[in-house]
């Protein structure tokens, strides 16, 4: 299928430890279409973080095949994986993870500069910042001078700057109060409604309830994969 953006076939991930191998992902098969909003839920230790790392090309599976945007990543070099992360995936973290040395504006511009080897002169960075509600004055500040909600909004703008196929969110509201969390979720939902594939890893059922599809993981296996009709 051409509109499949993520495709997993018999994915296993084994961490070799002295005390014995740990099977973090056990033969997972899964595919996600362009424009889907998928929530991955499960208790801690279930393997959802490991799955997120595979989807985000931060790690490669021990066995099985994983395709991102039609390209198999299992044989990719570190250089290729890094490039794929830069152009195809937008990361949104629980702890915002902005670069402390750079201003909000520069944080958003950074992946753009890495990709195009030049500074942004098209106004894309300013437009994205305006879209997430960060004005020019705020954009000059360092992350440490911004509130949690503001930081996460900057992080969303950063994740979008290279126009990635997939937005990968790891507990995006985990460090925010419920009101700000709501705001951030609305923003992500709006991006999804404009066609961005959204994958959220969470253990918050309230967040999961917003998704079109909920995948539950336990002990490295998918225990349920259901559409959400609410």
């Amino acid at each position: 299928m051409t509109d499949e953006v993520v495709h997993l076939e018999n994915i296993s991930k084994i961490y070799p430890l002295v005390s014995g191998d740990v099977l973090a992902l056990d033969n997972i098969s899964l595919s996600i279409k362009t424009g889907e909003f998928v929530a991955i839920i499960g208790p801690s230790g279930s393997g959802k973080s490991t799955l997120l790392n595979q989807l985000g090309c931060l790690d490669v599976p021990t066995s099985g095949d994983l395709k991102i945007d039609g390209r198999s990543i299992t044989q990719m070099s570190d250089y290729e994986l890094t490039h794929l992360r830069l152009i195809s995936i937008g990361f949104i973290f629980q702890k915002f993870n902005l670069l402390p040395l750079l201003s909000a504006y520069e944080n958003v511009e950074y992946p753009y500069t890495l990709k195009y080897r030049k500074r942004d002169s098209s106004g894309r960075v300013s437009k994205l910042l305006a879209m997430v509600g960060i004005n020019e004055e705020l954009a000059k500040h360092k992350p440490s001078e911004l509130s949690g909600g503001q930081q996460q909004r900057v992080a969303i703008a950063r994740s979008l700057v290279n126009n990635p196929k997939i937005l990968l969110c790891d507990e995006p509201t985990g460090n925010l109060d419920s009101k700000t969390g709501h705001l951030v979720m609305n923003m992500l939902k709006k991006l999804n409604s404009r066609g961005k594939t959204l994958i959220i890893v969470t253990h918050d059922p309230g967040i999961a309830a917003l998704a079109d599809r909920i995948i539950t993981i336990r002990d490295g296996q998918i225990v349920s994969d259901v559409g959400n009709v609410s």
Partner: protein
Amino acid sequence: MKDIIFAMAVRNVRINILRSILAAIGITIGIISIASMGMLGTNMTASVTDSLSSMADKLTVNPYSGKGGGGGGGPPGMGSESDNLTKKQFKDIEKIVGKYGFVYGVHNIRAKVKKGSDEWNTQVYGLEVSAMRTILDNLTAGGYPSSDNSVLIGTRFASDNDLELGSRFSVGGNGVKVSGIIESRGMTMDLNTDSAIVMTKDKYESLFGAKDEFGQANIVLNDINDAETVTNAIESQMNRREENVRVQDSSRMVSMISSSVTTITSFASLIASISLLVAAVSIFNIMMMSVTERIREIGVLRSIGTQKKEILRMFVYEATLIGIIGAILGMVFSLVMGYFFILIMVGSVKYFFTYESLIHLPYAMAVGLVICIFSGLYPAWRGAQMDPIEALRAE
């Protein structure tokens, strides 16, 4: 700033400015020590060569005294009491030297000196008064002997024995009077007069014999470059059948002294470079710290698409910046401190602003910078090799 990776390196150096400067100071000290040691060496060699070249134009000719069983290479003026240059030999030497310079004969002996009830042995020279005027041209007091009963004495001899102008004492049982005191001449090859008595040739011969047979012939050359020519000429003509005389060339001694000064200063530079080693360790430590405390940042950078090479570049830039700060500080301080250091140690900065001396500055700066970058390399590599997942997990 166009390159964002470079901009981040600059900002990190600026945020930790105190730490960066402290690390840079390590490099600065290293640069100062090797640059000033290098400059000191150059200036010392130049100034030693300069002051020694005034004595390098002298040759001494001694009769060969190998038959006595002892070596013939002892200091001049000693061990040649029994053998003298014959009148003919002296004439030959004069003929060979000819236009190259000036030759004078020297009588010398260790003789008994008596003043009051004190009695001791001392070096006694016998010279023509004309030679005294030419060679011993620096008297601190008095004048040249006007009669055979007047003598010149060295400053040390005068002060050690409480002698002054007009003082009387006896040499070899014969009373003499001090007519002049010779200024200190230091270590020289021709005449060591500081603790000696210099009398007229006639007086010497009347006391100790050896009429017209000198113990030593000294040659003062007009041009130092003729030393080898004259030495070869004397040796080939006078030692044709058997070894009769031995020529000592003081320029050889000068080059020996110069080369030992060079050896000493390069040894000092070696020791000074230990401080650069210490600086390297401190840069290594600082860079390791910078990497460790930014593990999480590295994780973020890597996860959003920064290549390993770019992480490496960021930390190498940081080490380079510290190195550049250190090198610039080092150059400024080396110039200032080196100048005063040399002024105190050598006593002259005549050769300070020469190419040979100042070349040590860029050389030391380059060494410092390279060491700085080199010690930043491993920490940078460690940062670049970090697993992004592990790094992101770091607190």
